[in-house]
């Protein structure tokens, strides 16, 4: 009967994910969109939990729901000059976009539904962090280091870009 609970959890979480995601892209107010984005991220974290990825769920909540979304809210506050209630309109493409999105969903969904799966019989180890932390630092050491450099680059880049113009030195 575990399956049933899982299924129910999946449907609930999935509904939450999709519902809040739809709100993200349909709400007129950008701040509201960001708020429902937080809901989406938390729901996705729930899905991760369902999939025995507890560490990942935690990261998701911390990084996305916490860091990213706060950052975005700040960003909105910094740049929004006009009426915030009408800050998130759609453009002329939304019809095409909807059709395209629907098409891709149907295509992938249809193919997914037809797919046969060779499910591995084993369980995900309970101690996820303890198991994959060593892997991350041995097998995946190169990506790990690269990620570190990547963050450095992104940081310096972001700093550079938000610097005031006059600090740019000796150009015209």
């Amino acid at each position, binding site marked *: 009967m575990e399956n049933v609970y899982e299924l129910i959890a999946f449907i609930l979480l999935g509904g939450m994910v999709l519902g809040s995601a739809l709100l993200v892209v349909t709400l007129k107010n950008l701040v509201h969109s960001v708020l429902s984005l937080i809901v989406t991220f938390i729901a996705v974290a729930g899905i991760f939990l369902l999939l025995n990825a507890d560490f990942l769920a935690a990261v998701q909540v911390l990084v996305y729901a916490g860091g990213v979304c706060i950052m975005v809210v700040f960003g909105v506050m910094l740049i929004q000059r006009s009426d915030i209630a009408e800050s998130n309109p759609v453009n002329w493409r939304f019809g095409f976009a909807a059709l395209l999105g629907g098409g891709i969903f149907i295509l992938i969904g249809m193919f997914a539904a037809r*797919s046969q799966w060779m499910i591995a019989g084993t369980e995900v180890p309970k101690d996820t962090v303890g198991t994959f932390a060593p892997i991350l630092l041995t097998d995946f050491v190169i990506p790990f280091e690269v990620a570190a450099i990547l963050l450095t680059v992104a940081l310096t880049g972001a700093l550079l870009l938000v610097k005031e113009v006059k600090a*740019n*030195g000796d150009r015209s």
Partner: protein
Amino acid sequence: MNIDFSLITTEIALAILGLAIFTLGLIIPRSARKGLGNIALLGLIIVLGIAVYSWPNQGETLGGMYIVDHFSSFFKIVGLVAAILVVFGFRRYVAANVGNYLEYYSTIVFATLGMIVMISAGDFITLYLGLELMTISFIVLVAFRSFDVKSLEAGIKYLLLAGMSSAVLLYGLSLVYGATGTILFAEVAQSIIDGSGGLLLIIGLVMLIAGLGFKVSAAPFHMWSPDVYEGAPTSVTAFLATGSKAASFAILIRVFVGSLTGIQEHWVMLVAVLAALSMLIGNLIAIPQTNIKRMLAYSSVAQAGYIMVGIVAASQSGVKGVMFYSFIYVFATMGAFTVVAAVYNKIKSDEIADYAGLAQRAPLAATVLLVCMLSMAGIPLLAGFVGKFYLFMAIVDGYMWLVLLGLIMSMVSVYYYLRVVLVMFRDDPVDPTPLKMETSVTITLLIALGVTVFLGIYPGPLSEIANTAAQSFFTP
């Protein structure tokens, strides 16, 4: 699992170089930072030396997640050469138009590192991280002239589109992972041969093509490139058009020819059509352009189409063709953009019309631009001809239509190149004072000219090296 450090010396050296520039730049006074360019240049040359020196090293480390063979070494050298030329040939341009040496040179080095990691990637994660390091670095570089609205616009366009394409690429990777149960290229290949697959794999395949096609700016995934190329600082454009593209081709080959061979029948024709589209669209839209950077951008779309021809072949000769062409393409493109940047330094314009009489004001620059463009068009005695010869040789059996289209479109490309030639050579300059080029620019131009002409006349050695490299790709 232990790491074989001997295989990743180049990467380590490059990372150290980038960090060294970074730290050094913070230590030294602002006024002295200009010297960072020289340090970057010296460092890159040393790294290139290391890369060349470690040519004989072959192997895999980290359980196949990092592959070092002649194929990857070749593309690493290509990427490093591009980086060196960018650092060297655009010094004056950077000083005059970009600034922020610390960030600029370190980011250039890190972008190179991203390319090199990507080239050697043996699994999806390394691939992704390398790709993203490169992309993020390039986003920073594209938007580097943050006082210039065009540069920023190009930056945001590149950021958003690259983000979308990354998402698509990742989705594709996840589907491939789902279909095969592994993220290692070698195992994916084995798994597909063993029969895993299905429709999701096809979608994954398409998404991979889209994601990587975006990076190499193959039509119809090319649309970012003209805008970004035009808006970015010219040095960055040059690097984007050479290093980034070459590295992306390397990984494209690694993924498709090396890993997805089992479902070749699904993608070969697709790649052929994309190649054809790229040639058509790139060359046709380049015709009415008036901005030389934008024209070169469209022409680079077309060039991507030619290089993809080698992937269509999915054979050793095809891979060899891609390698050969990538190498010469770096020099031709670098030469052309160096001229563009050098001229921009003097006349502050990228409009073709303002190149009037360049042949009289700066004969060397005009000649190099001419030679480089003609090389891209595949006119003989220049390297591009030999490159196209190798590429089309690989597919002439069975894809005659593509060969013909490619050759005809490259002749069309002569049309718009000649329009530039017309302005440069026929017209008399408005201001006849000679344009004095800096020594670094002159040397870069001479290198580009020399390599392009030399390889056009005597391509034997490079072709043999490329052949060895391609061989190592198929028999690891």
